[in-house]
């Protein structure tokens, strides 16, 4: 490539501004994520996942017939968005209970991506992640037990 074909280095007066930096920035990635999330929420609001055809089925459920920890979460979100808290909770209690924590973490991420500063980290013991793993796996197993009261955990 001959020297005349290269764009001048950024600190030379009159050079074109380097716009590629924005597309690699954290704010851009966060914007994409936020846009995608809003599209998903809008879709779930208008189209009830409980009705066939509105949402692809869970692959785990298709193959095994069992419930994964996420089964019912989209339907639950639809109920919650329409103000029906109890119905939403009944469809996937774990997902509904996790909303405050996930929302706090997401809010902190978006604030940090757009303003540079996130929310304060909630102090939690070092084994918190392991406890979450245990809860998710236990929930996964128990909601597939076909008798009361475990059927309450199933969608």
């Amino acid at each position, binding site marked *: 490539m001959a020297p005349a074909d290269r764009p001048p280095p950024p600190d030379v007066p009159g050079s074109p501004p380097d716009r590629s930096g924005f597309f690699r920035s954290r704010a851009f990635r966060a914007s994409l994520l936020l846009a995608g999330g809003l599209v998903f929420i809008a879709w779930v609001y208008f189209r009830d996942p409980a009705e066939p055809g509105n*949402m*692809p089925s*869970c692959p785990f459920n298709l193959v095994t017939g069992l419930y994964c920890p996420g089964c019912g979460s989209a339907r639950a979100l639809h109920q919650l968005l329409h103000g029906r808290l109890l119905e939403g909770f009944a469809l996937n209690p774990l997902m509904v209970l996790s909303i405050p924590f996930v929302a706090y973490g997401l809010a902190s991420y978006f604030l940090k991506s757009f303003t540079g500063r996130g929310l304060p980290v909630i102090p939690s013991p070092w084994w918190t992640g392991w406890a979450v793993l245990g809860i998710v796996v236990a929930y996964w197993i128990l909601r597939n037990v076909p008798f009361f009261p475990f059927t309450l955990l199933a969608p």
Partner: protein
Amino acid sequence: MFCPKCGQELPDDVARCYSCGEPVEHLQATGPVQQRPPLTPIPSNLVWAILTTLFCCLPFGIVAIVYAAQVDGKTASGDYAGAREASNKARTWSFVAFLCGLIPMIIYIILIVIGVLAGAADHNF
């Protein structure tokens, strides 16, 4: 080794992080006793792991949670390099789980929208 400021993975012989410019000491050994504490807390990425497990793709979401769970324990025991690696893996697997959930969803939405449009052309509303 990893940059103590931004977590960028670096070869052992550089003097400065090529991502953020922070000067890096050469470590004699990479055991937990010798590691410098990070300048900012290492994120566990547990939120991303939970979110993708509950909405997207099951096996990869669980993998992400397993790695996220390791971060705080390793940080507490001084294994900052291990914690950084677990943190990065938690984020990577969350992203893989996200893609596994997102791509079928997008294809589905496109097919439905195309289907609705194609259907509307045939009917008089």
